[in-house]
């Protein structure tokens, strides 16, 4: 059985097609990245999957239950965890009181284990929490009832890099236990670290469904080279070098080829500084799916 099956899902707000005829499947035990720029319709899909809003057309099932049928969906929700990007916590109570409340609604057999990894100050009022502490309470409540499926909307926003790494590690552990994770993000780098497969959404439409490795190969890296000012950068070219842009004492390009080729090309230069980083998601779109 598929963990999530989206078929022809559309959600229109007046003239705005926030989701337009989406169809895709998330398998059990898969970490699925739902990638798209801000405003692409990721949150709209998530809200439909959780039954917060009803589809204009089409439908979806989660854990085999139709999202349009509240009674059916309630059965599934016992096995679903949800983590919004900015969790709506009750600011007036302590973290512990909030988790007690959530646990009274859905259970908490994994609470203690999670609190060892994510440790917000439980006895302080949530209104005193930093952004990161709030997100940790959100993570704990999303996983504490040991759900089969966890749906997360931009989950690592607000976490410091160390906690982000702990979170990624934890997610990989969940996959090993055959849990399904649906994970939306607008940052390719975030998704690539944990996801098996990625669906890319733009302007409400599904652009592509790919294995993460294939996507990264096609997406390439952004390379920025600073050289001594007298270097003849015009010569710097080769297979896999795209979108060259020259500036004062250097050059920037997208590289999709073999790293060995890149290293041998660069060996001819006296390099002051070299940066190789993830391309912004927008650039990935530009290169492979057209600018419009």
């Amino acid at each position: 059985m598929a963990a999530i099956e989206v078929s022809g899902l559309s959600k229109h707000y007046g003239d705005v097609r926030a989701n337009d005829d989406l169809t895709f499947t998330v398998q059990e035990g898969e970490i699925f990245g739902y990638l798209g720029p801000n405003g692409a319709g990721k949150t709209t899909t998530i809200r439909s999957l959780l039954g917060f809003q009803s589809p204009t057309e089409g439908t979806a099932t989660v854990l085999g239950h139709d999202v349009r049928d509240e009674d059916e969906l309630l059965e599934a929700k016992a096995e679903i965890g949800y983590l919004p990007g900015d969790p709506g916590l009750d600011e007036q109570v302590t973290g512990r009181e909030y988790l007690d409340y959530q646990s009274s609604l859905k259970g908490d057999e994994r609470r203690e284990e999670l609190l060892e990894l994510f440790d917000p100050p439980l006895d302080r009022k949530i209104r005193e929490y930093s952004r990161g502490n709030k997100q940790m309470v959100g993570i704990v409540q999303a996983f504490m009832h040991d759900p089969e499926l966890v749906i997360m909307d931009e989950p690592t926003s607000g976490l410091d890099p160390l906690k982000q790494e702990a979170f990624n590690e934890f997610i990989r552990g969940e996959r090993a236990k055959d849990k399904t994770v649906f994970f939306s993000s607008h940052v390719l780098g975030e998704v690539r670290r944990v996801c098996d497969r990625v669906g890319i959404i733009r302007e409400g439409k599904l652009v592509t469904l790919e294995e993460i490795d294939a996507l990264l190969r096609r997406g390439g890296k952004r390379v920025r080279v600073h050289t001594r000012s007298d270097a003849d950068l015009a010569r710097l070219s080769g297979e896999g070098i795209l979108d060259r842009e020259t500036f004062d004492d250097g050059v920037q390009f997208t590289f999709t080829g073999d790293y060995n080729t890149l290293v041998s090309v660069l060996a001819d230069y006296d390099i002051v500084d070299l940066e190789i980083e993830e391309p912004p998601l927008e650039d990935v779109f530009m290169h492979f799916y057209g600018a419009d």
Partner: protein
Amino acid sequence: MFEVTRYEGRRRMRGTAVLTVLLAVYALLIVFLYPSIAESSVDFDEYVESLPPAFQEGFVGSANFSTVEGFLSIEMYQFLWLLLLGLYVAYSGGALVAGDVETGQLDMLLATPISRSRVVVEKYLSLLVPVLGVNLVTPFVVYVGLLAIDETIDPVSLFALHLLSIPYLLMCAGVGLLLSVRLDRADIAQRGGIGAVFGLFLLDTVSTDTDFEWLGALSPTRYFSPVDILSEGTYDVAGALLLLAGAIACVGVSVLLFERRDI
């Protein structure tokens, strides 16, 4: 069952305690004011006669200012219970759902295996904490206060007044709830709740003794009269049942509306 009610009810404890203390202080103030008013030579009947008819109907009714029952029902109950407390619960009702939509707390709640109808009903029931809280404490405060000034009133009427105010307040809360499931912004639903209850109160008051008296029948205030209960000892039980039915209808309609809407 009732996890939401328990949680939200516990969160209302402190506010209820503060409200109860404030009302108790006000009640004692009124009670201790009575002897000096009763001894003064002011002719209250003349004063009441000079008020506009609508005002007389709204705040005085058939009460006699110079008796302790009349004084209490006008100075305390007609104003504080019928109007201010009614507005307060309507205001609180306005925040029940819309407040959680605004803060995103509703998403966290609806992501758990709890139905929308349960959310609405359980949240509404949490308002029983302030409604029952003030009505359990205040009659004792008033009664003991009266004993302290060597006055007494019929305790049955006093407790009946508080008991019969519960359906009235639940009805006002229901009006707030109705607005709360329709609107996304809590402050608008809350102000709407206040406006609706106050408007209905005015409708009842203004329409009395006119050809449009039937219009006032739409108002919850028509079915709960502190003056009648305290001064005359007449209990409008049918009215209370009607208010209770109205409150249940408000909750029922709220559930239907909330089940159909996008959040």
